[in-house]
């Protein structure tokens, strides 16, 4: 695999399948581990419904309450910027859409490359800022474990390698592209075994909390 082309074919072929399989199986296990635990029956007379407030909370927690925003504007803003940037770069970059189209047969309009390029640059800067914040903020430092730095790294790598490949800063190009795809695969493989699972489970968490508060007549 000393040849960059062989490397690219490997990451696009067997490695890609393996990553997808580990990701899919891993997520299935994680979601089953959670949902199969269930909840105990609740005998208290409800004051409100569960489903509506649960679903509302799934959406409402995207936005911080004003007090939290005032106390932690950096977390809220930078958190928003890099999450949004990551999603834009992932889903609105035309080559990514073409890949998804070839896999699933669905497509949607993308953004012009220079726009995605700018978004990626901002996302990288925002992610770098979150790392610095994690290293200096007393609460984040106290909470952080090696896993937090691991998931920061596996989140940062697909974007930085994509950025470098797009700007032809790694040569030859098959190597650059291969590294980018490998970074994405590492992300997929690590996802189910780390707190990257929040990509899925946060919605379940929000629903449960929204449902519990909603049942008591509180809009969470």
């Amino acid at each position, binding site marked *: 695999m000393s040849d960059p082309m062989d490397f690219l074919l490997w990451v696009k072929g067997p490695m890609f399948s393996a990553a997808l399989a580990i990701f899919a199986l891993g997520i299935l*296990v*994680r979601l089953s*581990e*959670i*949902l*199969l*635990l*269930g*909840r*105990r*029956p*609740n*005998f*208290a*007379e409800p*004051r*409100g419904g569960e489903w509506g407030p649960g679903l509302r*909370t*799934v959406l409402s*927690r*995207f936005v*911080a*309450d004003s*007090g*939290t925003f005032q*106390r*932690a504007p950096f*977390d809220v803003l930078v*958190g928003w910027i890099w999450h949004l940037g990551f999603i834009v770069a992932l889903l609105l970059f035309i080559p990514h859409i073409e890949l998804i189209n070839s896999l699933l047969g669905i497509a949607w309009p993308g953004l012009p490359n220079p726009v995605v390029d700018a978004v990626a640059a901002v996302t990288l800067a925002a992610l770098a800022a979150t790392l610095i914040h994690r290293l200096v*903020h*007393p*609460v*984040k*430092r*106290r*909470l*952080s*474990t090696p896993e*937090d730095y691991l998931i920061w790294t596996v989140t940062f790598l697909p974007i930085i390698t994509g950025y470098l490949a797009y700007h032809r800063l790694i040569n030859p190009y098959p190597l650059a592209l291969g590294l980018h795809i490998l970074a994405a695969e590492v992300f997929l493989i690590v996802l189910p*075994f780390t*707190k990257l*699972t*929040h990509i899925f*489970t*946060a*919605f*379940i*968490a*929000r*629903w*449960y*909390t*929204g449902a*519990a*508060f909603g049942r*008591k*007549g*509180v*809009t*969470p």
Partner: protein
Amino acid sequence: MSALSLERGLQAFRGEIDAPVAAFFSSCVHCGLCAQACPFYVETGDPKYTPVLKLEPLRLVWEREFTLWGRIKGALGLSRRVTDALLEEWEELLYDSCTMCGRCSMVCPVGNDLQYMIRKAREGMVASGHAPDGLIGASVRAIETGSPMGLKWKTLEVQIKHVESSTGLTVPIDVADAEYLVLLSSMEIINFPEYLEALTRIFDHAGVSWTLSTDCFEATNAGVQIGSKDIAATLVERVVAAAETLRVKSVISPECGHAYTGVRWEGPNLIGRAYPFRVFHIIEVLDRLRTEGRIRTEGKEGDRLSMHDPCNLARKSGVIDEQRRLMDLVAENFVELKEHGRYQWCCGAGGGVSSNERADELKRAAFKRKKAQIEEVEPERMVTMCATCRTQLEEGLEDFNMDIPVVGLTEMIAAHLVEKEEGDNHD
């Protein structure tokens, strides 16, 4: 509470882990925003008081025993075990520095209900013998005497006599088939006897059929605070038995926060069945009487009043508009604290903190958040509807030499009732 052990504690932790807990721990990304919602962190600046960190013992059990990855790590000897030393260290975090106010549960971006998990984690703390002495004492007194403060019916009886002589009314006792069974809190009986008098006046004015029960007058539940389902269920059973014996339609929880959530939301699940009666906080009952036009008031308080929402009532039970409608009835110069209702800040004393003498310094520290809120709007008096909050506000404001009296909403309503005319009949 015999044979407490680490193994029993671990078993209790295991028993508390359900789908929401697993979803919550799976989702936490260590952003630390829960710290910004916690008065104990905000006022001390010590990162160990970050709410999600307080859950580490429960999280360790979940990771090690409820996830595939954790089991693999455990088998390889790579994961941390919950030990007595760890639980000893966490006792302060789970009890002294948490009032279970639930503010963190409101702001967590991934939607974790941290307060729900703190309540659960305390089950493991009790079972492993790591609960604070102050709360153990309150629990033992509650089980043995019926009151966490060791108060007996005789004490209440004396107070009832006082109320009857000052109002000229009869306080109904053990009246079968009454509409409401009224519960009280020991804190109220000792610190705020005006509550029972206010209630007696209002219910007479509105023609409400109510009763006290000699079998059970205590609404508070030390078991809910310490985190022992066994103790909590025993105490709830007493309320249920009294209500069933007297065949009342509803039970009224007094101006006390956790008593309400304890009997209203936890109670039926503690005893494993729905109640044959309904449960209301006194504020809900007063607001309903107001809606029905059964409370007629005259005159209004003219000074600048603000209000402290008890966490258990507002954020944890959705009773938010009721107290404001009642305030409108008797106050013309009411100003809201900036963050109120479901985003209000805890007084710092609930969730067992006030029964835990060791936590006194932290309790005072946490109050500084409330104090800052009060200073922002400069009220002449504060109004609230929980005896623990009220005591904490009174003591805290006095500590800071702030001359702001604290009043209970029920007694404020009672002070404005239209005098009954001769022959007035509300039946």
